Structures are given as structure tokens and as C-alpha cells.
């Protein structure tokens, strides 16, 4: 259909048409603007406080409780590492970080806020990167503080029970190591949230990833599946987490800092996919 053009005297193509110029100075925006924005978003909703609050409660609460219970019994802890007791709380708490990671991206799709965000910042990759930076720092710091606090309390509680005092690398793995691992796991959830664009769906998937291998492996009784069962056990997230405490479910499989490299690769792949889809798809 044709477009009737009302004659406009100044219809000369582009530059000098009457326009409006704002008195507010225009600044060139970069990643740090987006990071500031995402930090405002994260700190201004209650779900952040809830998920992180529950996380701290689980990690510290269960960790201290376990330490107190073990410390009050006369059980002989000789030869074992007191930091191991932090594992249970952290495993439960990881679900909170997964939830927070997913919500950071997927909740914007649920509310439609993402269209406002992407209009204010057409560079979609920058928004995703800013979310990742803010989430990673928050998750890492909170986990580090919680695990360190728990570890210190546990070591103090178990002082007289004959447990050996943990060495430098034990400390590093049980604090910085697991914090990096969990923050990266949350970051992978953030990417999955951006891919799935649906909070409940993405959370379900990530909880499934967390628990399913272990649960499936429990039901593999036949000998022919022995190897698969073993692999599922060894590479399941709970087992990877326990490797940081040097009490893996098996002796073979990943050890030392391996879980960190694995989750790093997985997160990188998830981010590549999330970025590609974000650029390509309609918001």
C-alpha cells in the first residue's frame, strides 16, 4: 500500500530537521553502568534477601549444629577433618544459590521487565555480563563468609575430640574452593534462566541437574550398568562438592580441584549458549 506523504517543506532527508536536545549531559555508557543497575535491581527485591538469608541459615546453622553434636559426643574423630562437617549445609544451601541465579535472569522475563531493560540497554550481551558479574560477586562473597564462619566454629568445637587440625590447602578448598564452585554453579543457573526464560522451569531443571544423577545411580542395580552408576556417582554435583572436603564417595574419578574446572567449563558453555540465544531471539 502506498504511503501518502503530506508535503512538508523541510522534508529534506535527515540531518537538519527540528529536533529536541536534552539539557542533561549524555554520557557514553559501558559495562559498569549496567553493573550498577543490576546491583540496584538485585538489592531492591526481597527474593534476594530471602534466598541468601535461607542460604546463610542452612550453611551456618547446619554446619554449627553438626559441629556441636559431634563435639558433644565422645566419638573419636581422630584422623578425620573437622571441615567435612560443613558439607551437608552447603549441599542444601546450593539450592538457594541456584534459585537466586535463575531468578536474576528469568524473573525479568516473567514480569516483562526485560523489555524495559533491553530498551534502556540495546546491547544485550552487556546486560547479561552485568548480571553475571553482580551475581557472581554476591554469591561468592556470601558463600565465602558463610563457609569460613562455619569452618572456624567447627574447628573450635571439635578441638578436643582428637580430630586433626586441617592444613592450609584444606582450609582453602573448604572456603574459597567451595565458594567458587557454588558461585559458578549459580552462574550456570543464571545462564539456564536466560535460556529457559521461565523461573519455575529453570529452577526445576537445575535442581534436577543437582540431584538426578545421584538418585538415578541409586537405582542402577544391574552389573551391566556398574560403570554408568559409578560415573554418575562420581560426577554428580553432591560428590563434586564433597571432593573439596576430601571425602569423595569413591576413590577413583575427579579429585583435588577438578570439580572447579568442570563447573567452569559447564558454565562457560551455558553462557555461550545463553548469549547466542539472547542476541538472536526476540525479547
Amino acid at each position, binding site marked *: *500500500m502506498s*504511503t*501518502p*506523504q*503530506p508535503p*512538508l517543506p523541510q522534508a529534506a532527508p*535527515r540531518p537538519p*530537521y*527540528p*529536533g*529536541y*536536545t*536534552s*539539557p*542533561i549531559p*549524555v*554520557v*557514553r*555508557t559501558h559495562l559498569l*553502568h*549496567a553493573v*550498577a*543497575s*543490576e546491583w*540496584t*535491581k538485585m538489592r*531492591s*527485591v*526481597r*527474593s534476594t534477601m530471602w534466598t541468601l538469608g535461607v542460604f546463610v541459615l542452612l550453611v551456618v546453622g547446619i554446619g554449627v549444629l553438626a559441629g556441636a553434636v559431634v563435639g558433644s559426643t565422645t566419638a573419636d574423630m581422630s584422623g578425620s577433618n573437622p571441615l567435612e562437617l560443613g558439607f551437608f549445609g552447603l549441599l542444601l544451601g546450593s539450592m538457594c544459590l541456584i534459585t537466586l541465579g535463575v531468578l536474576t535472569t528469568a*524473573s*525479568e522475563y516473567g*514480569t*516483562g*521487565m*526485560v*523489555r*524495559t*531493560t*533491553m*530498551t*534502556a*540497554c*540495546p*546491547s544485550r550481551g552487556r*546486560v547479561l555480563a552485568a548480571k553475571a558479574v553482580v551475581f557472581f560477586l554476591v554469591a561468592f562473597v556470601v558463600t565465602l563468609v558463610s563457609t569460613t564462619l562455619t569452618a572456624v566454629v567447627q574447628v573450635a568445637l571439635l578441638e578436643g575430640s582428637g580430630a586433626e587440625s586441617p592444613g592450609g590447602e584444606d582450609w582453602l578448598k573448604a572456603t574459597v574452593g567451595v565458594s567458587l564452585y557454588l558461585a559458578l554453579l549459580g552462574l550456570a543457573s543464571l545462564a539456564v534462566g536466560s535460556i529457559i526464560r521461565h523461573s519455575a522451569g529453570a529452577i526445576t531443571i537445575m535442581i534436577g541437574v543437582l540431584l538426578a544423577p545421584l538418585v538415578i545411580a541409586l537405582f542402577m542395580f544391574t552389573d551391566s550398568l556398574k560403570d554408568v552408576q559409578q560415573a554418575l556417582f562420581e560426577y554428580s554435583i553432591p560428590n563434586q562438592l564433597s571432593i573439596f572436603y576430601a571425602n569423595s564417595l569413591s576413590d577413583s574419578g575427579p579429585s583435588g580441584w577438578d570439580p572447579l574446572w568442570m563447573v567452569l567449563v559447564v558454565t562457560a558453555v551455558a553462557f555461550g549458549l545463553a548469549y547466542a540465544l539472547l542476541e*538472536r531471539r*526476540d*525479547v
Partner: protein
Amino acid sequence: MIEAVGLTKRYGDKTAVHNLSFQVRPGAVTGFLGPNGSGKSTTMRMILGLDNPTAGHVTISGHPYRQLPNAPRHVGALLDAKAVHGGRSARNHLLSLAQLSGIPARRVDEVLGVVGLQEVAGKRSKGFSLGMGQRLGIAAALLGDPQVLLFDEPVNGLDPEGILWVRNLMKALAAEGRTVFVSSHLMSEMALTADHLIVIGRGQLLADMSVTDFISANSADFARVRTPGTEPQAREKLTSALTEAGGHVMPEQDGALRVTGLPLPRISDIAHEAGVRLWELSPHQASLEEAYMRMTQGVVDYRSTDDQKAGLHQVPPPGAGPAVPVPGQGQPGWYAPPPPQQGGPLFAPPPGPYGAPQPNPYAQPAPQGQGPGQPAAAPVTADRTEPEDPR
């Protein structure tokens, strides 16, 4: 300046927007009209680079939105008033957007004042009414003090005071030399706000012209002529005389005649020559709403049907007569519910564009309810005509 060239968007095999080309110029309010589902919002999203067009392109000041330098300072948009995280306060919502665009934080309080939300700035937007949500959305659009503004249905849910405010705001923004592009399906609102109209239906361009041109191009003004009701033969006589003189005459339900193609003085002269007295001779100018209805009647996607309530009727208890409508209560016709089947003619609402049971003068001939004497898709059938100037 917004410029769309051959813009097309397909979702699967459904074409939302088809080969749309238009320009939106600065210094004027451009209304973007179309029935529900005609592709207005899709077009807006493509302008903002949120959706990728299947074909064609759209630019703002010569750049695609996503390549625009300082896009949020150049373009402000209200797409969906509910597109906020309900758990975040109005101020924090705007603050996050301001930080993202490198806008000083004190600008947030300025725009909150402009839209009148200062008092609830710290409240979570979950509890906002639809009108407050619209105001928050408008505040977000104004945040960057941009040169180009897009508003998708900005007056949805606003009270009369808010509607007036939005109307004046749009005009003031355009008067400052900005490009203002407002989508709406409210004709009456656009008639008062817009200078220029872009009308689409089923994703295709129907019109791109000024409001005045639009009305004169899409409406036929007519004269209503009423002869004394006691003399039916006078009516016949006048009809034939007018037809002979080249006029087009159509009887109305209440006995009046609707005459097109003849100026009022000529009608009077003809009646005088024919010796017919007139009880009424009045000019009627079609409103923008009528012009719009006429134009879009073939492209309405979602059309309501009569509410039959088949098999759901209850036998009224003995003695309970049909409720008599209270005079002066309720809006006659426009929003009246369809009459109960037993109610009979007592309830028949005056014919109006939304009075479903009556033949809708703007709609395509419906399979039912179309009287045999009712000419389908007649050139002029509008009953509710306000002689007021639509501007």
C-alpha cells in the same frame, strides 16, 4: 524521526505485520491506530529492536535502534505498564534504569514528580493500580529526556484527570520538537491528541495522513431530514424529489431520512418546491471514531458475538416481572448488556457501535440479526453521530 520500510513480521505462518512503511516526524503527535491484534505492539517492539523483523527494517534518526548511539537518551518508550518487577519500589525501578543509561540519579525524583508518583516512590509497584502503573511507565519513558518517544496505549487505566494529563503531556512533548508516536485503539482520544494518524489493520497500512484528512477521506457527512410523522406520503414525495435531484436517500428506523450528496440549502429548496414541510434538517459530521470504524470494519480480528446463553435460561419465578430499567441509570446502549431473551423490546438498547444485538452499523454483515430491509455495508449507516467537531 522514525522510518519503517517494508516492515514484516511473521510468527510461524501467522503474519503479524505485513510490508509496513511509514514515517513518524518530529514536532507532532502521531497516532498509531488499529484494532486489537492488528500489529501495533509488534511494530513498536520492532522499532525498539526487541523483535527482529522478518523482512524490511526500521530506523530511528537513520540508525536501527540497537546501533543507535546512546539509545536510551535518544528514545524513550512505554511498552507495557506491567513490565516492572512488582517487588521493586518505583524509585528503585527508575534508578536501575537511570544507572543503566548513565542518567544522574536525581533525574529519577524529577520524573517521579512529573508523573505525580512522589508520594508512592518508596512503595513496591506490586500494589500500584493500573493507572499508577501507567504513570510509572511514562516516567520510565521520560527518564532520558529523549528526542523520540513511543507510547503503547498510554491512557489505559487512567482516570479522566490522568487522561487529560497524558493528552497535554503528549502535545507539550511534541511542541518541544520531539517525535511522539502513540498507539491506541481509543479513537476519541486520538482525535483530541494526535496531529497525524497511521492506521493499520491486520498488520497492513490502511492510512497515513493527518487527522483532518483522515476524517474527510473516510467519512461521508450527511443531512438528516425529518418530515411530519403524520404524513407518510410527504416522505415518499420528498424521497423521490431528492433522488431526482441527484441525492442519495436512505430511510432511518425512526422515520427520518438520511441524505447524502446534496447541500443543506438545496435540500430545503427541493422540499419547498415539492411542497413538503420539514420538521428537521440537520447537518451531521462523522466523528473520527466513525471514520475509523468504517475503515477498519473489514480487518477486525476479534469480533464479539451475541451472548446466546443457549439452554441456560431459567424460568422466572411467578410474579417476577422483567426488571424495569431505572431511567437515568446506566449508560444507554453503549455498555448495556445484551437483553435477556424474554425481555423483549423493552430492553432493546439503542443501536450503537457496541450494542451487539442490533445490526452493527460498522460491522460486516453478521450472519444473524441482520434485518432483511437493512442494507448490508451501506455507505452511510451510522446512527450515533455527534455533530461536534472531532478535533
